[in-house]
Structures are given as structure tokens and as C-alpha cells.
């Protein structure tokens, strides 16, 4: 068989796969365009509903969205949490990064001068069920409360000493635990100064 007939042979063999891949890809793009805004709105609603848990005394109807430019030059939405009188109480910062399985989206609660973490909430994750997905558990998320933003949050395997800036990893899910800490650290590094300058 000559080269030319071999090539047409491949196309003849694979045309259906190529055609279907294109058709399905187009259909999925359509689905994403239609449903994407709705899913984003759901996520925004969820963000608003957890803000009172991340910043003490915050009232979700008083929350203000602000767009800042991070150190990496990209625009980023942050939330100024205020109490029912409208007095600012703290910040809520959305952050995203790679986990063990897929992307992890978190919300970080911070005090007003961005020096202490006041709460952490995992919005979306697809980590291993029963191990890594325990990052969704308040028991894990609360380990971040009170950590300082002046130095990176460390992940350790045993109970950290009081006053240290370390959190205990989940058993059997070291990578997921470290991913969350890395997401928090890189978001803080990127956004701490821009928020303080507001």
C-alpha cells in the first residue's frame, strides 16, 4: 500500500470519530454557554450565604463586591463583609487552585487588616471520596482559623504546637490538605497588599 492510500485509509477509518468529536464538542460548548451563567450565579449565591460564617458579625445583605488587581496583574473580585449597621468587619477572598484530582475553589475569610484568617470554606472540589473530600468538612476547614497571613500556612502530619502557623493534614489525604494550604498561601501572597491598599 502506498503512502497516499494509507492516509486516505486512516481518514476512512476515523472519520466518524473525528466528526463525532467535533459535533459533541460543539454541543458541549453550547450547553456551557447556556448553563454557565446560571451555575456562576448559584456559586455567587452560595458565596454570599457563607460569608457570615467566615467573618464574624457579617451580614450578607451588607456585603460589597470589590474588584482589585492582584500582584499577578489580573483583576480579582473580593468581598467586603459588613455588619448590619454597615461597619466593615473583614474580607472574603475567593481562591482557586489545583487539588489532587481536580480544581479546588475555596473562600478565605480575613480580618479587616488582612493579618489573620477568620474562616475557610471549600466551595467546589472533586477529591477522592472518603479521603480528600474531607477538606469539605468544617473540622478540617476550622484548622485554618486564627492562622497569620504574615508567613505561609504550613501543613504538618501531627497536631501543630499552639501558636504555630501550621495546620494538621487529613489522614490519607496529604496532597489534598497541602493543595488547600497552597491555594490559601498563593491567594494571600497575591492579594494581601492590594486589599490593604483599598
Amino acid at each position, binding site marked *: 500500500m502506498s503512502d497516499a492510500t494509507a492516509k486516505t485509509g486512516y481518514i476512512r477509518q476515523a472519520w466518524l*470519530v473525528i466528526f463525532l468529536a467535533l459535533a*459533541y464538542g460543539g454541543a458541549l460548548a453550547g*450547553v456551557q454557554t447556556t*448553563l454557565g451563567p446560571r*451555575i456562576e450565579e*448559584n456559586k455567587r449565591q452560595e458565596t454570599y450565604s457563607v460569608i457570615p460564617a467566615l467573618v464574624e458579625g457579617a451580614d450578607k445583605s451588607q456585603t460589597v463586591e470589590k474588584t482589585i488587581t492582584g500582584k499577578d496583574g489580573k483583576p480579582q473580585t473580593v468581598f467586603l463583609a459588613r455588619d448590619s449597621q454597615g461597619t466593615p468587619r473583614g474580607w472574603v477572598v475567593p481562591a482557586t487552585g489545583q487539588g489532587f484530582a481536580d480544581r479546588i475553589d475555596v473562600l478565605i475569610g480575613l480580618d479587616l487588616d488582612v493579618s489573620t484568617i477568620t474562616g475557610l470554606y471549600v466551595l467546589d472540589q472533586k477529591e477522592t*471520596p472518603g479521603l480528600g473530600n474531607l477538606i469539605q468538612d468544617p473540622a478540617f476547614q476550622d484548622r485554618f482559623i486564627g492562622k497569620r497571613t504574615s508567613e505561609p500556612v504550613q501543613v504538618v502530619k501531627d497536631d501543630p504546637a499552639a501558636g504555630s502557623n501550621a495546620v494538621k493534614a487529613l489522614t490519607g489525604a496529604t496532597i489534598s490538605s497541602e493543595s488547600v494550604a497552597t491555594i490559601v498561601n498563593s491567594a494571600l501572597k497575591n492579594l494581601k497588599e492590594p486589599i490593604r491598599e483599598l
Partner: protein
Amino acid sequence: MPLDEPTALERLINGILPENPVYRQLLGMCPTLAVTGAMMPAMTMAAATAFVLLSANIIVSLIRGLLKPHLRILVFTLTIATFVTIADRALAAYMYQMSKTLGPYVPLIIVNCLIISRCEICASKQSVGVAIADGVGMSLGFALALGSIASIREILGSGTWFGLHLFSYAYTVAENILGWVTTILGMGTLGLPDIHWQNWGIMVLPPGAFLTLGLLLGAVEWFGQRRRRAGE
């Protein structure tokens, strides 16, 4: 096409009990074990799986004449993955909390052997009508299996069914009936003993899934053998 391929009606009926995907074929064990802690997630999973299975069966059956034998699995997987993504996005858009509860198990429908096996066994060989009947039958069988396990686990583990507090409801009803009876008979106050449903925690945890599935599989097999022996 061989003449002894099952007809649409046979496919439909086979899927429900004689070839039940979970109890007879032991397929789709991942969702069977993972999302049957309660009825709501189990039935959502059954519906999402039914959507993917039906859609994949229809598409594969329509293009069955064009399939190249060595590329067919690729086409099946491509088709299934597309519909799983649609189901996943639709859940996130319209049932956001449920989509978070099911988490990775919706994307994992892609690797549910039930669907690819129906594409291979039925849809790639038979007409669209038969493929639809097959998809409906298998989906009903799968929903029945998930529902039976989830019912046992939710009732024993949480005292609820579809989130309804069955036991406290039944208790209130029993208390009221007793109240009327004693009033009518003029027996004065005769109350029910103060009992509460004690949640059987292990049933909603992963071991509960294995226990329930094992016992139900055993029961289905036992009845099946008895019937076969009776038929001999």
C-alpha cells in the same frame, strides 16, 4: 442480524428484574455503594444515569451501521462522556445543592459499565426502538436497585425516607388514633410509651452500603434459586 436477538419488549422486561444491572449483572457498583445513603441522591443518580443511558443507546443505535469494529469503544466512550457532561452541567445549574452532594459521582457515570455494556450488547446491534426499550428497562432496573438499597439505609440509618421523618410521623398518627379510641370508649388517658427511633448510624456510613448490598444480593439470589428449583 441473528434472528434470536431479544425483542424490544423482552429487552424492557429483562432490564428490570431478570437481568437487573445491579442484582443480576453486578454492574454500576460505584454509585450503588456510594450514593445510596438516602433516597434523594440515589434517585437523582438513577435519573442522571437513565438520561445518559437512553441518550447513548439512541445515538449508538442510530450510527450502528457506520461503526468500525476496532473504533467502536472509542465512539461509545465519546458519546457517553458528552451526555455525562450535559447531565453534570444541568445538575449544577438547576439542582446546585444536589450536584454538590453527589460531587464526583456524576462525572463518574462515564465509567459506569452498565452504560457501555448496553451500547455494546444492544444498541450497536439493534434498532432504535429496541435500544430505547433496553435503555428504559435497564434504567428502571438500576433505579429499583438503588432505591431498594437507599430505602433500607435511609430508614434504618436516619429514620427518614426522602427526608420525611417516617417514625415520628407514624408515632404521632398512632398517638392520635389511640387518643380517639380511648375517648370514644371512655377509657380515660391511655398514652403510648415514650419511644423514639434510634438512628442506626452505620447504615448511612460506607459499611452500611456493603452490608445492605450483600444481604439484598443474597436475598435476590436465594429467591431466584428457589424459583428455579420450583420450575424444574
